[in-house]
């Protein structure tokens, strides 16, 4: 079991990115101390899941119309991550996506999202008369795992379209209720996502490299950093952006952010 000495506050959308980063770092350091990987990266996510004593299961997960579920986390029996067998090929071809997906589900577990009231009681719903599908929360791949902004937009439009039809169509109501029931709220999604990224790119290791003069103000340097941490270039960009180390200018190029508070990061 991984033991960490860090307070994890009750699940809330107000838990800051910095706090999530701090929690992920504590877990990464505990992982290193277990002798699995002294550097702390790349994290062998399957081993990490074992160290958390969470079970893992490959199984087909039913997907509602036009929705994609990569994996789910349920807290029953000490925790279970179910990976959707339907996307096995994607996971085999893209181990980085697989790692991030497991990291995301681990994030739900560590941040105790299942304890949030969103999962213990039903929110007010126009369609409350409908039978409630067992609430599990899933990794929805429509955000950044290989799907374009257009595809994300398409899903959102689809949902709006269904909402309009729901007024008159029982089937549409059911689809919408299913979508709402089975996707985690956005803030949970992004917190789990941020946790996954912070776990895979531990802050202390990243800052050590930057302090040593690693180039992070060019796409080439950022993609090389990504390769170093075994994450995609776009994930590396997100990590640096969240840490307020870079911003992408109007010229489409990354620029290092010069600010006094940044100096504190290296102290």
């Amino acid at each position, binding site marked *: 079991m991984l033991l960490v000495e860090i307070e994890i506050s009750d699940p809330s959308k107000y838990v800051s990115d910095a706090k999530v980063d701090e929690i992920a770092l504590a877990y990464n350091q505990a992982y290193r101390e277990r002798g699995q990987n002294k550097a702390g990266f790349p994290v062998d996510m399957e*081993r990490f899941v*074992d160290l958390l004593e969470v079970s893992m299961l*490959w199984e087909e997960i039913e997907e509602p119309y036009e929705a994609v579920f990569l994996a789910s986390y349920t807290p029953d029996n000490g925790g279970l991550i179910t990976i959707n067998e339907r996307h096995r090929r994607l996971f085999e071809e893209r181990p980085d996506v697989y790692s991030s997906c497991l990291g995301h589900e681990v994030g739900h577990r560590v941040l105790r999202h299942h304890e949030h009231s969103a999962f213990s009681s039903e929110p007010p719903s126009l369609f409350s008369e409908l039978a409630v599908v067992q609430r599990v929360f899933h990794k929805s791949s429509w955000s950044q795992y290989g799907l374009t902004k257009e595809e994300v937009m398409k899903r959102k439009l689809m949902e709006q379209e269904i909402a309009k039809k729901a007024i008159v169509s029982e089937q549409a109501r059911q689809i919408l209720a299913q979508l709402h029931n089975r996707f985690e709220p956005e803030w949970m999604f992004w917190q789990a996502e941020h946790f996954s990224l912070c776990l895979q790119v531990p802050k202390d290791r990243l800052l050590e490299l930057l302090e040593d003069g690693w180039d992070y103000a060019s796409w080439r340097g950022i993609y090389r950093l990504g390769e170093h941490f075994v994450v995609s270039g776009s994930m590396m960009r997100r990590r640096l952006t969240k840490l307020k180390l870079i911003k992408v200018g109007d010229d489409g190029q990354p620029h290092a952010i010069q600010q006094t508070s940044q100096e504190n990061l290296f102290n």
Partner: protein
Amino acid sequence: MTRQNEKLSFGQTLQKIRRAKEKTQREVARAIEMDFSYFSRLENDRFDSRPTRETIDKIATAMACTAEERNELLAAAGRIDEDVEKAAKQAAENPKLADLFRSLPQLSNEKLEELWKQVQSELEDKPRPKQRRR
């Protein structure tokens, strides 16, 4: 009853031993040439049928299990040790042995220990087939 005393399913037993050995599902599955997703379902008790003795033996070997751990896996799968199974077959043909088998579970652990020592000394002079202390 404490959680420790609860009877674990085959999957739970397998998972407990595998984690203690610090091996991942994928590593064990690869070692026994089993698909890792199938292995994960085995570990989560997703099958109606019990794993075969052969499968359990392969898994136990891949995880470098002790005789005790192997027997734990067999017992959790509702299967008994091969030697015990052989002895049970012999008991079916030998009423005395069958009576002995039936009475043994009624004895206390101390009595069983005593009896075991007695049997051991009886067998000391005789070459005997592979025996496992349970």
